[in-house]
Every structure is written in C-alpha cells, then in structure tokens.
C-alpha cells in the first residue's frame, strides 16, 4: 500500500473510532450512567489513539528503512567495487538505479545489464518485504488503538482531560517550530560556511578586495572570494536608498500624523501602503525597463556631448527604486510612533507659544526619536537584505567604486548568481553563497535585535 493510501486508511479508521466511541458513550448516557466527559471527547480520544501512534510509527519506520537501505546499498556496492566485480562507471549507474528504486519504487535507467539486474531485483525484494512489514504493523497499531479506545470508553474515564492534554501538547509543538526554524537556518548556514572556510581562509574572505569566483569545474585554481566589494556595494546601495527614503518617509509621516485631516489621512495612508504591497520583482523590472533607461537618457542629454555618464544599471537606479519601496515602511512605522507621543506634550509646547512646526521639531520628534531610529534600522535591514531590485537593477560586476553612476553588486545578487544553475555542494563556488548568507543573516539580525531593543525600551516610557 502506498504511503498516501496508508495515511488515508488510518484516518478513516480514526474516523470510525471517533464515531463508534461517541455512539458507545451516548448509549451509556442514555442508560442513565453519569459520564465524566461529553461523548464527543471519548470519540476524540479514540481518534487520537488510532491516528497518532500508528502514524508516528509509520513515519519512523519509513525514515528508518530508507536510511538502513541506503546504508546497505553503500556498503554492498563499495564492497563489490573493492573486489573488482564492478567497474567504476557501473557503480555510479547502479547507485542511480537503486536510488530511483528507493525513491520512486521503479527503475528508470535503461542501461543496466543482466548481472546488475539480479542485484537490483534482490534489493527490490528486500525493500518490498520491509514495506509490507511496516504497513502491516501500522494497520495493527491502528486497529489496536481502535479496540482499546472502544473498550476504554467508560464512565469513570477522564477523556476530556486527556484530549486537552494532547491539544495543549500540539500547541506547544507548533510554537516551538519557530525556534526550530531559527535553528534550521543557523545550522544550515553554519555547516556549509564551515566547509567553505576549509578551502578558503577567513582573512581572504573578509578582507579580500577581489571577487572572482571562477567556475566550479576548474577546481585546481580556486578563485578569489573577497567580501569587501560586495559589502561595499550592499551598503552603498542601501545608503542611497535610505537617503532617499528617510526624509520622504519621515516628512510624510509627520504630515499624516500632525497636519492631515482625518479624511485626507484615511485616503493617503492606504495609498502609500500600496507601495509596500507591490512585490519587489515589480520594482526590479520597473527599474530595469523604465528608471534605468530614463536616467541614462537624462544623463546623456545633460552631458553635452551626448554620452551617458549614468549606466542603465547603476547604484543610483537601484538606490532610488529601493528608496521608493522603503518609503511606506518608514512612513507607517514612524506614523504610529509619532501618534503614540502623548498629546499633553504638544499642548505644553503650544501653551509656551511655539508654532506647530516648532512643536513637531523640538518636542514631538525628539520624543519619538528612539522609535523613529528603530524604524529606520528595521528599514535599513530590509534594504540590505533586499534581493530582486538589486538583481535586476544594480548589475553583476563586483567593482569597488565610489561613483554612484556606476554599476556595483551586492551580497544578495551574488548569492543568487552562485546558486542558480547546476549545483555541486562541495565546490567553494557554491559554498561561498552560504558564507555570504551567514554574513547577511548576522548583519540583519544584529540590526533587528538592536531595533527591537530600542522599541521595547521606548515603549516602556509612556505606559
């Protein structure tokens, strides 16, 4: 029986158990005996008894047999290779065949000959036996759960408490997934990064000024993996974007929070937030097709001799478009913070004779300053981690330049470049992407933590 059929069967059995136990409990109740819980809980408990143990067993059995068989294949094939029965290229074929046998339970490769075939058949038989044992045990488990649950439907049993225990346990597991994901991110980045630094020394990565990874095939001469030009490009583009987004965002927030009438505000705020809802790929394409060529033509019109000094893909293009994308982040975060400043502070300032703009500049903004700083930091971390705009608008050449009209590249662009196409997980050309990802993760994490720290500390002041 296939895995999905098995799962369906177990669930069907569980449903049956739910129905039967509930019916039994109802029957008890109608006979006049006082049950501890409502009938539905007895049903649910039987359902849990049927489904959870058997599915857990099925899953573990599945994973266990897969690991066991893979190990067996490895051992036997390498033994055959050692003893010279198998040629080296045949070994690869055999491994492929056995793998596909394991994963899809069918043989796809055509170029296997007779003696290999018998070997494969041998294995197929083994796999089948193991699968049958697993399925039978699962069915037995489920049936046992059903019978036990039915038998155990008695008036003294605390079914509700047990069911609630299971529910709370599953809630805890669900909330622990967040921690698991973080651990997953850290470990997946960490191990690949460590194996990258086995072939490239730390100092070459962190202080190297040349980015030239070469191609994975020529592994004899390892390329140069200098982080500096990428980091410079990332920070430069993020800076341009922030230079654009911070003033616009904060001024919009101030206007919306302090000056705009409620009608205007309820119209403008969603309009600006549309900007945040547009996917970044759209911004990227907009930069590539509209903004880049526009800036190039503009510069060629200004330069006099018709030569464009702004490249179509440049720091400026990517920075401006990213800035547009970031405006709503800054404006809506700052708007909330400015509105959270107590009105009494403003009234005090007005009472001393300050104009509205003086109040805003001297009182409101300085009271909101930590919060706005946190908003700016959060936005900056978004600017650093932004991918699609820079992939399409910033260029791929890893140059170290201070000319904003030139193309530069970023960490995220290089992660995408190194990981699209065919992959080999052991070449430094692929693994460097994880080192870059680790760098990106650490930098953004620090910024986020710092921003959250500021927000928490600031929130305590007025509550």
């Amino acid at each position: 029986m296939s895995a999905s059929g098995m799962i369906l069967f177990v669930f069907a059995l569980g449903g049956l158990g739910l129905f039967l136990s509930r019916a039994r409990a109802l029957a008890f109740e109608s006979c006049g005996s006082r049950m501890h819980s409502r009938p539905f809980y007895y049903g649910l408990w039987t359902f849990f008894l049927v489904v959870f143990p058997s599915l857990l067993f099925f899953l573990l059995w599945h994973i266990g047999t897969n690991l066991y068989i893979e190990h067996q294949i490895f051992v036997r094939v390498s033994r055959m290779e050692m003893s010279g029965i198998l040629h080296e290229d045949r070994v690869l074929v055999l491994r492929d065949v056995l793998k596909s046998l394991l994963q899809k339970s069918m043989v796809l490769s055509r170029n296997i000959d007779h003696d290999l075939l018998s070997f494969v058949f041998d294995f197929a038989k083994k796999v089948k036996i193991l699968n049958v044992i697993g399925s039978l045990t699962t069915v037995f488990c489920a049936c046992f759960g059903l019978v036990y649950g039915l038998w155990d439907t008695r008036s003294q049993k605390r079914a509700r408490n047990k069911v609630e225990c299971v529910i709370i346990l599953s809630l805890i597991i669900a909330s622990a997934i967040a921690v698991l994901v973080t651990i997953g991110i850290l470990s997946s980045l960490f191990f690949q990064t460590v194996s990258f630094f086995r072939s490239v020394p730390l100092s070459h990565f962190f202080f190297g000024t040349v980015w030239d990874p070469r191609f994975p095939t020529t592994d004899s001469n390892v390329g140069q993996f200098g982080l500096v030009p990428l980091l410079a490009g990332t920070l430069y583009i993020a800076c341009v974007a922030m230079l654009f987004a911070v003033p616009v965002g904060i001024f919009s927030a101030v206007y919306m929070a302090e000056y705009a009438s409620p009608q205007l505000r309820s119209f403008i705020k969603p309009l600006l937030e549309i900007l945040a809802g547009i996917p970044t790929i759209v911004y990227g394409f907009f930069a590539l097709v509209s903004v880049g060529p526009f800036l190039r033509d503009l510069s060629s019109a200004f330069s006099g001799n018709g030569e464009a000094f702004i490249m179509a893909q440049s720091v400026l293009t990517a920075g401006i478009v990213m800035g547009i994308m970031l405006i709503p982040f800054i404006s809506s975060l700052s708007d909330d913070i400015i509105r959270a400043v107590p009105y009494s502070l403003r009234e005090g300032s007005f009472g001393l004779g300050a104009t509205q703009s003086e109040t805003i500049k001297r009182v409101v903004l300085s009271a909101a300053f930590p919060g706005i700083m946190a908003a700016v930091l959060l936005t900056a971390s978004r600017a650093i981690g932004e991918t699609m705009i820079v992939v399409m608008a910033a260029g791929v050449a890893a140059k170290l330049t201070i000319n904003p009209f030139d193309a530069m590249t970023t960490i995220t662009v290089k992660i995408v470049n190194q990981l699209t196409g065919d992959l080999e997980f052991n070449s430094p050309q692929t693994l460097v992407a994880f080192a870059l990802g680790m760098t990106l993760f650490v930098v953004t994490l620090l910024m986020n933590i710092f921003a959250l720290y500021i927000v928490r500390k600031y929130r305590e002041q007025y509550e």
Partner: protein
Amino acid sequence: MSKLLKHRDIRLKQRYRAEAFFRSCGLFAISLGVFFLLVLLYSVFSQGVSAFWQTSLTLSVKLDAKIIDPEGRRANDPQIICIADYPRLLRNALAEELGVSLDDLVSLREVSRMFSFGAGSQLRDLVVKNPQLIGTSQKLTFLAASHVDSVFKGQVNLSVSETKRKLSNKQLEWMKKLAYEGILHKTFNFGFFIFSASSRPEMSGLGVALIGSFYMMFIVLLCSLPIGVAAAVYLEEYAGRNRFTDLIEVNINNLAAVPSIIFGLLGLVVFIHFLGLPRSSSLVGGLVLTLMTFPTIIIATRSALRAVSPSIRLAALGLGASKTQTVFQHVIPLAIPGILTGTILGLAHALGETAPLLLIGMVAFVANYPVSPMDPATAVPVQIYMWANEAERAFVERTFCAIIVLLMFLALMNIAAVLLRNRFERRF
C-alpha cells in the same frame, strides 16, 4: 514699555514662514510618494495592457488531402496525420489570399513568417481530432507571428531602414491589406493564461506559473495557518511568561524580519539537499514560503486574540467550560475574521515573493503542466523574472502583462482582507 516690546520681538514672520515651509515639505514628501506610485502603476499598465490582446489571422484554410497525406495511406498509418506539413497548408491559404503565386519561393517564405509557429500545431490538433475534415475548407483563427503582432500594435519604429527591421516592406504591405480585409485582427489573448514556457513570445504564457503559484499558495495555507494559529493560541492563551516563551517570542519577531533570500538558502539545504525533495517543485517552494509566512500569521492571530474581550473568557469559564473549551469554542471563533485577514495578507506577501524561489531552482523552463506539487513548476513572479531576462521586444509587453495579472491577484486578496475586516470585525 516700548523697550520691553522691542525685546519681545519673537520673529513671528520668519517663524510663520518656517511653519509654511515645513508644512509644504510634508505635503511635498507625500505627493512624491503618491507620484511614484502613480508612475509605477502607469508604466506597468500602459505597457502591459496591450498584451491582453494578441494579433490573429482568420481565414479559410483548405485542408488539402494532397498535402496532408500525399500517398493516401492515412487509413493504415494514423501517424501520417500527426506529422503532416500543416504550416504549408496555412502558408498556401495565406499566399492565396495575398495573391502570391505558389512558385515564388522567396515570397512564400516571407508569407510563412507572418504567422506563428504554433498555428501549425493548432491545425494539427484540429485535424487529428476530426480526420473527416480533410479535403474541406475550414475558417480558422490562428496567431500571427510576434513581429507582426508588435508592428500591428504600433510598438515598432517603422522609420528605420528595412534591413534593420524584422519585417520587410513587402510584409508590411501585406499586413495593411490583411488588416483592411479584416483578416488580420486582434483577439483576446486567452493563450496568455494557458500556454506554458516557450522561446517564442506569442506562444508563451502563464499557464504553468499560475498552476505552480496555486499549488504553493495551497501548501502555504495548509501548513502555515494551523501552525501559526496553534502557536499564537499557545503564546496568547496558555503560556506564562518564562524563558521558553520569551525565546519563542524573540524568534518569531526575528523570523518576520529575516531577509527572504535566507529562507531560500534554508530550503536548499534542508528540503532539497538533506531531505531529498525534488528540485524546482512547488512542494519545496510552498514549504519555504510557509516558513516565511507563519510568523506573520502568528503575529496577526495574536493581535486578533488579544482583541477578544476578557469578559467572553470569564463568562465561558464561569459557566463551567474548561480552559480549552473556552479558547476553542468561544475565543477563536470570535477571532476568526482577524486571523483570516492576517492570513490573506501573509498569503499575498508570499504570492509576490521571488528571491527564495530562485535558489530552490524554480527558475526552470517548464513546458509541461505540473500534475502534482512534486513536479517541476514555476511561479508567477519567477516567470516575470525569467521573461525580464529575455531579449525580444515582445517579451517586455508580456512581462508587464504578467505583472498586471500578479497585481490584480494581490489587489483582490487585499480587498478581500479589508472587506472581511470591515464586515465581520466586532469591537468589544
């Protein structure tokens, strides 16, 4: 007294000027934001809408048995019908319409460049389905070539010299003639939503991408909604404040702010390399997007749960409900509108996400529809990325059109979220 007044010069004029300046700065900033929004939307819509219509040719094609089956063996060998030279039938029909002689091979070649490569397969499918049509004349509508399409829509500068153009002057003359006779006309571009990836612009569409995106959204919904709601319920209703819950909370807040590309790296290592799931499948894409989405759902659900008045909980507990009964039968049902709003917004965000999908190999040329989530597929934003890298002019229009489709979906989801919130949200 007058001396005192002099001292009280508080530079009112200057200060009012500064006030006006400050205010206009704010107004300017807002209008700048709105201006950019309008420019963005205008440039997308103005360049993309035209791709909803595609130039087609409608003319009667004679299904000549001599060309389809020159040796008359189709009764014995059904393969003949499948491999017959259908483009030639179309070419001949068009040549006849244009008055080009069937001996003028140079002109004939130009005639056959007028219609799409896909027209032949369209005709083939028709004949294979209805073999009795052979020998008759059928009125057919088929796609024109992409160059013809671009010229017909006025997107090509025709003043450049003939050698630099993809269409010759002769072909332009023919186009005028065909357009005048109503043979060359625009039809609604259904193919854009059906076709899969193709190197020919007029034959490529969003079909696979739409299915892939649908699968992924389904997986995201299926996985992240239960996990997100369960986690939020635990944190909001059950957990006390201790180290464990603090750790979870910090993690959730951080996960919501981790750059999306990092999730792509995670997916590559864990799902593809470690668990051995198929590369570029929508299953892996959906799982990666799930990891990205569920922190958002947790945060939304928590605020929805917090908005439910404590009096509801107290009333339920007072009537003898257990804690779990209170939460599951009273608090969560009241929080559902808020939860759904957050979920829809999270899904909308996941729908537009591109970067992590690039890393798990969804940048693939997929010509067949994915039958299950395990098959290779693309997603709408990834398709946009792939078309953006194509060189041909006709792909720009299609890219913008795909962006319009994507934005439409996002707008629909957001409107649904807003309506849901306004319609069902209760204030306590």
